[in-house]
């Protein structure tokens, strides 16, 4: 019975897993976490400076998702719904640390340690290192805008920050990244 359940879970669609998890099926939720943990942790790692902190927040976000899963109206909305929970968890953690408006003005260019012709051509940039040098709010807004493809108004909707603030964070964050990542001459 248990093995049949495992096979079913492994073969189940995400929508089926979500519906089962909404009915408080812990195994289905675990399978959902297994499938989505990489995406969720990567998203939070872009927002946080440390991987450990990001993983802790991802865990907290999944627990919140489990508690609120009944509020999710359609399984198709899960990614956006979970992203909102992840962002809220991040913001709450930062507000607890009183660090959300911390400004980091270090926009000196990042010296490339392992310079390759490809890197020199600007095909790939060391995002993680550069993002870590932005303020929390700038990093959040730039990640949601460029990384998740959200519009300014969608970021306002998720974060609760004023539109002007979001625009300013995206602009300043992007400008800082440009200055940090421009090829060293």
């Amino acid at each position, binding site marked *: 019975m248990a093995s049949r359940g495992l096979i079913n879970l492994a073969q189940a669609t995400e929508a089926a897993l979500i519906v089962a998890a909404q009915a408080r099926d812990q195994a289905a939720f675990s399978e959902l976490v297994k499938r989505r943990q*990489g995406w969720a942790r990567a998203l939070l790692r872009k927002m946080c400076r440390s991987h450990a902190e990001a993983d802790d927040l991802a865990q907290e976000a999944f627990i919140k998702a*489990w508690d609120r899963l009944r509020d999710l109206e359609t399984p198709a909305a899960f990614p956006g719904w979970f992203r909102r929970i992840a962002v809220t968890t991040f913001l709450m953690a930062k507000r607890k640390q009183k660090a959300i408006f911390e400004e980091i003005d270090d926009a000196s260019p990042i010296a490339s340690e392992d310079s390759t012709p490809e890197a020199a051509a600007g095909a790939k*940039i060391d995002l993680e290192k550069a993002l870590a040098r932005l303020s929390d709010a700038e990093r959040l807004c730039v990640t949601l805008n460029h990384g998740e493809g959200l519009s300014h108004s969608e970021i306002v909707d998720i974060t609760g920050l004023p539109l002007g603030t979001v625009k300013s964070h995206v602009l300043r964050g*992007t400008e800082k*990244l440009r200055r940090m990542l421009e090829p060293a001459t």
Partner: protein
Amino acid sequence: MNDFNALLTRSFAEAHDEPADDGFTVKVGHTVARQEFANKIRNTAYATGMAAAGACILYGAYTFAGAFGQDFLATAGLEVARAHGAMSSAPTVSIAAQGLLQSLGAGMTQILLITGVLAGGAVAYRSVQE
């Protein structure tokens, strides 16, 4: 700047650095299981508390009825009769009102006792809910 925006967006898209599942799922699963267990215990304690509060109220009401029920009914009946008599046979309105007030005063002890029991029950119910 527009070129850089495009490069930035492309770089985000190309950054496929999704971490492998290094026990993360198991950790979340354990936390969820622990939380569900704690919820079950809390729900059981809540139901037990509610049942105990209900039993207390019923027991109090039963004891009260046993001790004062007959007395109360007799007094209430008598007072109603007196009030009725005072109103129907009173020569003036003021005498009738005096009789009614006397009747109410005589029944006040019982009314206060019942109110006290109901308030106590409500307090117990609320504290169990909290």
